[in-house]
């Protein structure tokens, strides 16, 4: 069998060569029987297992499962793997050597089968990996210890900061009190000293706040509190706080705000603190110079990226490339001589970077020694919806290619920043978006691509949203496309009266948006059910039950909103509560019964009220069934719905334009 083997030079390999390899290889080689005996072993294996010779090993180790493996189940695992795969690689186990000391080995083994397909023995190699295992274990322990230490450090810092604040409260408070009382008594002898005490206390407090912030970040205890706020208003606050700092070094401070920055949805405190850090930093390292803050919406190749940029440019001392690299590291100022000259903890920039990153943004710096530095902070316009990373280069597609039969939604909005946000939301629902930035282009695109849905901004230059809407409704080809209005102004009644299918006020609420898509894009062959219920919890529970059963569900929290919904949609079945504020279930179902288009929709009443015969008589015939809350099961409910949807199968009505 081996006779035919030749090496590259044509040398015929002999059995003696194989024997030599077997005898002298540093890896252990073995053949074992299925019952756990060794049939063959080389000297290296004997050495690894601690035996004087292969013969001793074979004679002594007769029950591998009991004698060798530390873990009694290890042999079983080995056999299972062999049966399944015929071989194992890097099978790592702890084993007992002859002297009962424990080492780690790694085995590569294959199983040899007989003609009947049964494994008759195993052949494998063994490596002693004890050293590697030990190193790994040490690494793991060191890592755990380091993590534990880091946690302990953060906890300690947090506790200490708190403990330090309490006496500081007294230092600052009493020095202020003494200044006030001295002023009242017209004593001015201590004014300067008291100022110094107070100033030192204040400085210490800021330092502690920084340490606390960083400790909190490191221990993962920092949370974002997102809110919508006006950027210009926030900048006014920051400017007021900063003015004394600006004056200290006789600097000029300029703020330039792009008029359309508007609002941002982010953590106000963290944005403000980050800005404060960056500007006070610039003021600290600039004397008799200029510090400029400019704020604008970022664009790339003319397309809004969905980020707001805060740029802080100073004419100060600047930094070397080496200093620039380290400037955001905690506890590091550009170099230690700076600490002596400029003071401070060196934590401000590290905290700023952490805050920015938490919000999905970042902060970067460009600087030249002696010329000044420019810090740039980028924060997403809506931190809860991370902006899409715009690949470079990304030319705007003027003629979007629309795959046939695709799920396309047309967004018409002049505000570029809205487009990536909506696109992201649509993507999540498996929909594609086509953009238009004014009404005219929007209409043209709509005629070309016939979208599944149009999302329309109200206020646009030129042709506004209302004008687009009326054009769409006049056009026999477009009039059936559902339209959702998206806007800053709440003018819902006008919108619905003009045939709008849904209405949303900016900023876009993701949950509302998704619900809108679900409702408007129900395909023709699936039925949907309208739930009318004022109790949020009950409505939610019911919705989940129905959705699990495969229905699409629309919700109304009152009879009035249900009626509003019905003006534009046609559910296949309505489940209604009886006791609701405003219009109750009796009035609601009666109104349905009296309406030509709605009386065919079957209604199931779901109520906690004890139903009297009088109640039953008061309910109109479109009420098909009354279910007592708590007394029906999930299956009964689903059976009832199926029965009535089936009985009253009505052709699906597309949202009818009025």
């Amino acid at each position: 069998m081996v006779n035919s083997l030749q090496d590259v030079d044509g040398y015929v390999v002999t059995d003696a060569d194989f024997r030599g390899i077997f005898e002298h290889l540093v890896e252990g080689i073995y053949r074992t029987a299925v019952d756990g005996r060794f049939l063959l072993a080389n000297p290296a294996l004997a050495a690894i297992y601690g035996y004087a010779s292969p013969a001793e090993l074979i004679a002594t180790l007769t029950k591998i499962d009991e004698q060798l493996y530390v873990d009694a189940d290890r042999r079983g695992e080995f056999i299972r793997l062999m049966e399944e795969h015929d071989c194992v690689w890097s099978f790592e186990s702890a084993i007992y050597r002859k002297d009962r000391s424990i080492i780690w080995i790694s085995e590569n083994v294959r199983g040899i089968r007989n003609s009947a397909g049964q494994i008759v023995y195993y052949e494998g190699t063994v490596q002693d990996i004890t050293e590697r295992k030990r190193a790994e274990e040490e690494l793991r322990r060191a890592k755990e210890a380091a993590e534990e230490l880091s946690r302990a450090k953060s906890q300690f810092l947090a506790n200490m900061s708190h403990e330090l604040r309490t006496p500081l409260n007294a230092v600052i408070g009493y020095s202020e009190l003494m200044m006030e009382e001295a002023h009242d008594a017209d004593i001015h002898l201590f004014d300067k000293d008291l100022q110094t005490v107070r100033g030192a206390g204040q400085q210490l407090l800021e330092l502690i706040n920084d340490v606390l912030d960083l400790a909190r970040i490191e221990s993962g205890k920092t949370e974002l509190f997102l809110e919508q706020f006006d950027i210009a208003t926030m900048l006014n606050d920051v400017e007021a706080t900063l003015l004394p700092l600006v004056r200290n070094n006789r600097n000029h401070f300029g703020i330039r705000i792009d008029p359309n920055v508007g609002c941002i949805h982010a953590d106000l405190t963290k944005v403000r603190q980050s800005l404060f850090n960056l500007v006070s930093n610039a003021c600290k390292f600039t004397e008799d110079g200029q510090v400029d803050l400019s704020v604008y919406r970022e664009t790339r190749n003319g397309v809004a990226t969905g980020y707001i940029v805060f740029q802080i440019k100073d004419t100060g001392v600047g930094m070397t490339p080496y200093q620039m690299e380290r400037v955001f590291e905690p506890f590091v100022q550009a170099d230690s001589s700076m600490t002596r000259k400029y003071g401070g903890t060196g934590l401000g920039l590290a905290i700023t970077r952490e805050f920015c990153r938490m919000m999905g943004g970042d902060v970067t710096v460009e600087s030249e020694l002696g010329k000044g530095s420019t810090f740039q902070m980028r924060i997403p316009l809506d931190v809860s919806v991370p902006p899409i990373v715009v690949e470079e280069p990304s030319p705007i597609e003027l003629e979007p290619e629309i795959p046939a039969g695709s799920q396309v939604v047309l967004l018409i909005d002049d505000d570029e920043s809205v487009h990536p946000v909506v696109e992201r939301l649509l993507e999540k629902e498996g929909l594609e978006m086509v953009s238009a930035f004014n009404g005219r282009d929007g209409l043209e695109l709509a005629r070309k691509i016939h979208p599944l849905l149009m999302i329309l901004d109200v206020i646009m230059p030129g042709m506004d949203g209302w004008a687009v809407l009326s054009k769409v409704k006049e056009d026999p080809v477009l009039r059936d496309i559902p339209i959702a209005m998206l806007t800053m102004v709440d003018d819902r009644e006008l919108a619905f009266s003009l045939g709008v299918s849904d209405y949303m006020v900016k900023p876009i609420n993701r949950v509302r948006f998704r619900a809108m898509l679900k409702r408007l894009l129900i395909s023709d062959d699936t039925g949907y059910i309208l739930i009318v219920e004022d109790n949020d919890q009950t409505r939610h529970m019911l919705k989940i039950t129905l959705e699990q059963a495969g229905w699409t569900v629309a919700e109304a929290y009152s009879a009035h909103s249900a009626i509003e919904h019905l003006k534009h949609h046609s559910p296949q079945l309505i489940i209604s509560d009886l006791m609701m504020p405003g219009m109750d279930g009796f009035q609601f179902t009666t109104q349905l019964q009296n309406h030509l288009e709605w009386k065919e929709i079957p209604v199931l009443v779901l109520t906690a009220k004890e139903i009297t015969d009088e109640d039953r008589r008061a309910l109109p015939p479109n009420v098909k069934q009354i279910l007592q809350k708590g007394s029906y099961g999930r299956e009964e409910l689903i059976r009832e719905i199926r029965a009535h949807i089936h009985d009253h199968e009505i052709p699906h009505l597309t949202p009818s334009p009025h």
Partner: protein
Amino acid sequence: MSPHRILLVEDNDTNREMLQRRLTRNGFQVLEALDGRQAIDMMLSDPPDLVLMDMSIPVLDGWAATQQIKADARISHIPVIALTAHAMVGEREKALACGCDDYDIKPVELERLLGKMKHLLKR
């Protein structure tokens, strides 16, 4: 016009005395309580116009005390400003959730606190 009566709930003697003196200077009449239980008792027997409540106080802490105050129709109308030294994230929301009318952090910045007090006393 008689001065506004402020109930200051604070267990730390130094801080309580300091704040008491500063508020008095600013024209308030300051009543003092050392814990939440005492604060509620004082509110019931002699209602103040506003409560400044340190949140980490003994017997009944500020969170529990405020909840009791806001659940008691006799005193629930009295505004409560929470004061905490932690300035931890979420403390503001927590304070507002348990019924506090406003929230400030220690060390107190007097001008800011006076602003918040005046705003609540005007209501």
